[in-house]
């Protein structure tokens, strides 16, 4: 009689998930699933609410990346009401969204993922955590805590609330950026940029080189990728641009966000609450078969680094070139998500500096006039965990008539299932497994930062 190994909850991730590994009589992996255990139903909750209130309600979809929902929601309502935000208002939204990327990447890499690399995947589970890192590498840990604080406080000071923000509004932003605040942000961002360059060096020397074997094996699958690029030069974009859907062979199509329904679909399986997006436009259906997946693409850092032609900021571009020389394009190894995350950390710091150095950023014309009306708007930003799509319809009173949301993490639910199955199958043989092996299966999920 076979048995089921349950890993529940999957830990050091940002959501509620469980892994079930089904073993056959001989103790080999028959199947493995990762499923999301929670459903709230925001697509229903926001119906009937005044659309202008929705951007601060949808924040609560995710307390890790509320700025992403906040800005995507505002863009979608702009679209419904046919309003073009003022240039400064739009740039302030981008500034905060990109700053939030900085903090998110520090949180994920150092607080959640680093214990596996600093202490080792087989370290005793009771100390394999950020507290263990504090003991093993106190200077690094103190530095990380300070950097996270610097990033969050920058947002807190200017925008009032870092978690569940309110400061972006339909038509732009609720307040202008004072010059003194701009100077303080520039100073702090410079510190964060130095730290991000140090972080990539640290990871190259202490993580990626040391764990190259694992990188080439653990959770490796072959898929397509989705990200956002600058329409003019194909460079990496986090706040706006065109969506680029790349096949595993590197060929791609670019499309306008408003047309996403022509390119993407969502597949539902009875064993998890998470919907699984797939590339409908490839006309091959949906399959998680490891050898012949159908319709499967990935999102999040590795995807964005793969789909972009270049990065518009110098330090991040240099890091991208080095990455591509080592791993090719598109790179498929799942643990490279961490590497790509640190490249994006550098980009986010550099982009923040660019925005702060833009002359108009302290302009007081932050908000365009808005009239509620019936319409449709699709708001897309790149959230840390993937392309975030908010699609709203409003009625004549300006209330939400219907909404469709594709949340960043969900793009990777199918791929995470494949990586879990790949990792479990290659690591668990003839009934042999231990907590170190099961942790490695979790590491295949953790790389995606769900």
């Amino acid at each position, binding site marked *: 009689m076979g048995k089921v190994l349950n890993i529940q*909850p999957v*830990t050091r*991730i*940002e*959501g*509620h998930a469980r892994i*079930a590994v089904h073993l056959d009589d001989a103790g080999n992996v028959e199947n493995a*699933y990762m*499923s999301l*255990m*929670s459903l*709230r*139903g*925001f*697509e*229903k*909750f926001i119906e*009937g*609410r*005044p659309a*202008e209130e929705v951007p*601060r*309600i949808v924040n*609560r*979809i995710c*307390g*890790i990346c509320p700025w992403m929902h906040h800005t995507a929601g505002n863009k979608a309502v702009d679209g419904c009401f046919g309003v073009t935000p003022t240039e400064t208002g739009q740039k302030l939204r981008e500034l905060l969204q990109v700053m939030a990327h900085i903090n998110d990447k520090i*949180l994920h890499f150092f*607080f*959640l993922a680093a214990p596996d690399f600093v202490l080792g995947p087989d370290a005793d589970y*009771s100390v394999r955590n950020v*507290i263990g890192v504090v003991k093993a590498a106190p200077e690094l840990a103190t530095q990380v805590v*300070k950097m*996270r604080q610097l990033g969050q406080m920058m947002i807190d000071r200017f925008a*009032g*609330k*870092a*978690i569940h923000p*309110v*400061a972006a509004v*339909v*038509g732009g932003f*609720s*307040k202008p950026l004072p010059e003194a605040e701009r100077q303080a942000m520039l100073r702090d961002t410079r510190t964060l940029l130095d730290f991000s360059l140090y972080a990539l060096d640290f990871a190259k020397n202490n993580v990626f080189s040391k764990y190259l074997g694992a990188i080439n094996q653990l959770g490796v699958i072959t898929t397509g990728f989705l990200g956002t690029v600058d329409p003019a030069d194909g460079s990496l974009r986090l706040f706006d641009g065109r969506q680029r859907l790349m096949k595993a062979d590197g060929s791609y199509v670019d499309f306008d966000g408003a047309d996403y*329904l022509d390119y*993407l*679909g*969502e*597949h*539902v*399986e*009875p*064993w998890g609450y998470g*919907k699984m997006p797939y590339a409908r436009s490839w006309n091959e259906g949906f399959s998680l078969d490891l050898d012949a997946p159908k319709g499967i693409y990935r999102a999040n850092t590795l995807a964005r680094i793969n789909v972009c032609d270049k990065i518009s900021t110098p330090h991040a571009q240099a890091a991208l070139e080095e990455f591509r020389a080592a791993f090719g394009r598109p790179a498929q190894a799942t643990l490279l998500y961490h590497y790509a995350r640190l490249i994006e950390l550098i980009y986010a710091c550099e982009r923040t500096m660019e925005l702060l150095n833009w002359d108009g950023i302290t302009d007081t014309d932050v908000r365009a006039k*808005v009239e*509620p009306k019936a319409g449709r708007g699709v708001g897309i930003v790149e959230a840390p965990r993937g392309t975030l799509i908010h699609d709203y319809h409003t009625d004549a*009173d*300006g209330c939400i008539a219907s909404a*469709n949301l594709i949340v960043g993490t969900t793009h990777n639910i199918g791929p995470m299932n494949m990586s879990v199955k790949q990792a479990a199958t290659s690591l668990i043989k003839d009934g042999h497994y231990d907590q170190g092996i099961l942790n490695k299966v*979790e590491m295949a999920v953790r790389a995606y930062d769900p």
Partner: protein
Amino acid sequence: MSGEKIRLNTEWLCDCGGCHVALVDLHEKILNVLDSVTIQHCPVLTDIKDYPEADIGILTGSIRTEHDRHAAGEMRKKCKTIIAFGTCAVYGGLHGAGLAHSREEIVDRVYRHNPTTRTDTVPDSEVTELAKLVTPVDEVIDVDLYLPGCPPHAHFIFESLATLIEQRAPRVTQDTVCARCNRQMVKSEVNAIKKSLDGVPDDNICFLSQGYICLGSVTLDRCLAPCPNHGVACTGCAGPTMQILTEPNRDIRTEVSDRMSRLTAIDGETIKTHMERTAKTQYAYAMATKMIGNKPTFLIKKWIADVEAGAHG
């Protein structure tokens, strides 16, 4: 018990994860906390998957599934003191809107009638079923302490943890958000309710005086008033004040309409009716708690039905 560390378990139920980020965001203070606290079960930070015996248990999120109910029960068994942490745990939170929509409606919208799914499959194996309603934590287990906020500000989190570590009474007040708001209340001649997108509000004057609905005066301060101090009216995310919760004939709309009508030239009934028509927004964070839901004057399902009948009729 000097020298012995306080043992802490945390668990997230149905929530967004923001309360756990708020815990991490004690920043350098978290390093102080770690001197006196051993973090055990804490899914976002540690790999301890069972529930060890603990002195303090922090529960975030509300009860949506059988899994949530089970986890809350395990935490209660193993932790001496349970803190309902964050607005979801205390009042049900935003997804308490499960009160306004049945689980069937929600599932139908998310999976069946959805422009990207185009399927009839609904998750029903390996997942724990949705409960009929979303409920606050204290409807399934006994809770010792409550710390609402969406999320609670670090100031209150640190004070509450310090209180427990030092075994002293907490230094917290029951002030409203207005207590920390820098705006001035003035009597105005404004005669119509404004939507939040109408014009640009004056930064120095109370939102109510200017004709904007603001829930600051009926909301407990667990945030230090960041929204009204940054140009945006309060939407009540930390939940209602004790007065609203305990007095049967007062609630959010009666108090706001009374106060706003005295500050403006807008009739109280007009304000009350407006708030009923937008009840899903005005009661967004606390509709799932019986302390609001059981009030004889709270008729949210009727208000929503009236609006929908109006919209379709």
